[in-house]
């Protein structure tokens, strides 16, 4: 390396000073990114490599760890409760994503139509997004409480149900309660993402279609939807990735109940790693979840990369 640069220096007589300064600027550049690189290396890359390493070991919290090859993965393959948690997570992801879009899309169309007070509407619909998932869960677990909450007593007071119904005791009621809570908290976020897509559609396009006699619905189907494919794909990725990793709301509101039916994948990994302290086994489950998520993201990124329908 040094002999090459030495040769180059001799070959071009005017070069020495420029070349040295370039080297120095390279060092300065590296210095600027060094803190970021160090943090990512220590708290992201190293843990990632360690997860893979640990997954091949029997690794209790205390005492020696022992190499056991792929035994953890074999155990994971046979772990009915893990796959039940995975099934539930996928079920939740499908339902909640559809529910979020079903609410967020009309909201985005509503606040994108020019009208007075739109700024207020946007802010109001968005506000729950900045409340944390833990805060939102603690808020809703109270609203959903059978005795001190809002919904059950209100239903009795309005004569909808004869007796107080415990919304958190039955799987379907509990599940849909969480869906409502998550839609309340997240719909504003998806709404804003979809708004950026709506704003990128040239106004002339739908004006022209209107003159050609296209109705509101066919304008939406033939212009809005295809023009927004990239934005929709992005909102989809964010919603799916976020939902596949759901934990806070199920831990805080339902604690996995009723009858352990609402334990998500992250919840199961959490309880294997940090309640049962089977660190190696938890790492193997983590690797499985990680691979599933990366594959999902890559598939969806392909969707995102394809060119826009009309261009």
């Amino acid at each position: 390396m040094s002999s090459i640069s030495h040769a180059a220096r001799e070959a071009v007589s005017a070069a020495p000073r420029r070349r040295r300064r370039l080297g120095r600027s390279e060092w300065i550049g590296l210095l600027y990114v060094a803190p970021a690189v160090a943090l990512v290396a220590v708290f992201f890359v190293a843990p990632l490599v360690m997860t893979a390493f640990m997954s091949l070991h029997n690794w209790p919290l205390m005492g020696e760890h022992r190499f056991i090859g792929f035994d953890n993965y074999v155990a994971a393959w046979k772990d009915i409760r893990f796959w039940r948690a995975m099934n539930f997570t996928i079920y939740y992801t499908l339902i909640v994503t559809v529910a979020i879009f079903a609410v967020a899309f009309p909201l985005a169309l509503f606040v994108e139509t020019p009208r007075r007070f739109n700024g207020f509407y946007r802010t109001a619909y968005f506000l729950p997004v900045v409340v944390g998932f833990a805060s939102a869960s603690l808020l809703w677990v109270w609203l959903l409480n059978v005795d001190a909450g809002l919904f059950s007593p209100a239903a009795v007071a309005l004569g909808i149900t004869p007796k107080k119904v415990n919304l958190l005791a039955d799987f379907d009621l509990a599940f849909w309660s969480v869906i409502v809570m998550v839609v309340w908290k997240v719909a504003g976020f998806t709404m804003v993402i979809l708004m950026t897509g709506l704003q990128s559609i040239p106004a002339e396009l739908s004006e022209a279609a209107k003159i050609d006699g296209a109705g509101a619905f066919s304008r939406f189907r033939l212009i809005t939807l295809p023009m927004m494919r990239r934005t929709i794909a992005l909102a989809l990725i964010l919603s799916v990735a976020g939902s596949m990793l759901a934990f806070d709301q199920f831990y805080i509101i339902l604690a996995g109940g009723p009858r352990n039916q609402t334990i998500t994948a992250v919840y199961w990994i959490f309880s294997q790693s940090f309640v049962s302290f089977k660190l190696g086994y938890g790492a193997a489950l983590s690797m499985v979840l990680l691979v599933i998520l990366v594959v999902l993201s890559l598939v969806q990124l392909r969707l995102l990369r394809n060119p826009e329908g009309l261009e």
Partner: protein
Amino acid sequence: MTALARRLAGTRLGGLAEHTVGMLLAFLFLAPIAWTLLTSLKPPPEARQPPLPPWPVTGLSLDSYRTLGAFGEGLGHYAWNSTVVTLSTVALSVVVSLFAGYGFSRFRFPLKNLVFVLILSTIMIPFQSILTPIFLILNTLGLQNTLAGLVLVYVTLQLPFSIFMMRNAFDAVPKEIEEAARIDGASSLAMLVRVMLPLVWPGVVTVALFAFLNSWNEFLAALVLMTDQSKYTLPILMTAVRSGRFGAIDWGAVQAGVTVMMIPCLILFLLLQRYYIRGLTAGAVK
């Protein structure tokens, strides 16, 4: 423009119906927040009853907040933990991503693009799956159960978004501005602080806002990494309160805690809304 004019000239009745729907939706989104706020101000016996009506009828009281003061080491202690973690995460995220954004935008060095892509791609890997080794690494570094350890983890989680934001901000600054300053003989650090910082300020605010909201609200990492009760952040404390670990569940106290957790986020968002939306759309457009 014509669409706007037509809409303004549209029927008054249609407009009224639209605003009725708009207001009803606004009520649905805002009501839970208002309900919590109002319940936290009720006297504890009333807060134990269903919140009908939502406003206090037997007078205002701060007793629910006082009750929280008696849990563990007191609300103030945990609010301080949360504040220290959050503000440190904000400061460190801003400094690290400011440097990195500047480095990636303005300097050339070996493997630059690869390193940049590598940092961004960490966003695809869920941090939930690498928490166990993070726990062990913090132990090795002697940072177990320290707020500093939690801060380092949070900053790392913020980096892909923050560095992406800051590099774009620096890329948008014309090179001529620095060339003029370089003739004056300013060093690169002086240039960054005096010349570039004011120009990339909106990006800095966006990075700071996202770092604040994410670290203030983060739950799982704090739950796993902070096992010492005196190191709890607010979400962990409040979950313990609600699960009855400090005695019977006091719903007034829970809602007081939720209010304390929500208010800073709501105020910051309302003040800096513009920067939040900019952060979201920066991700959406790219």
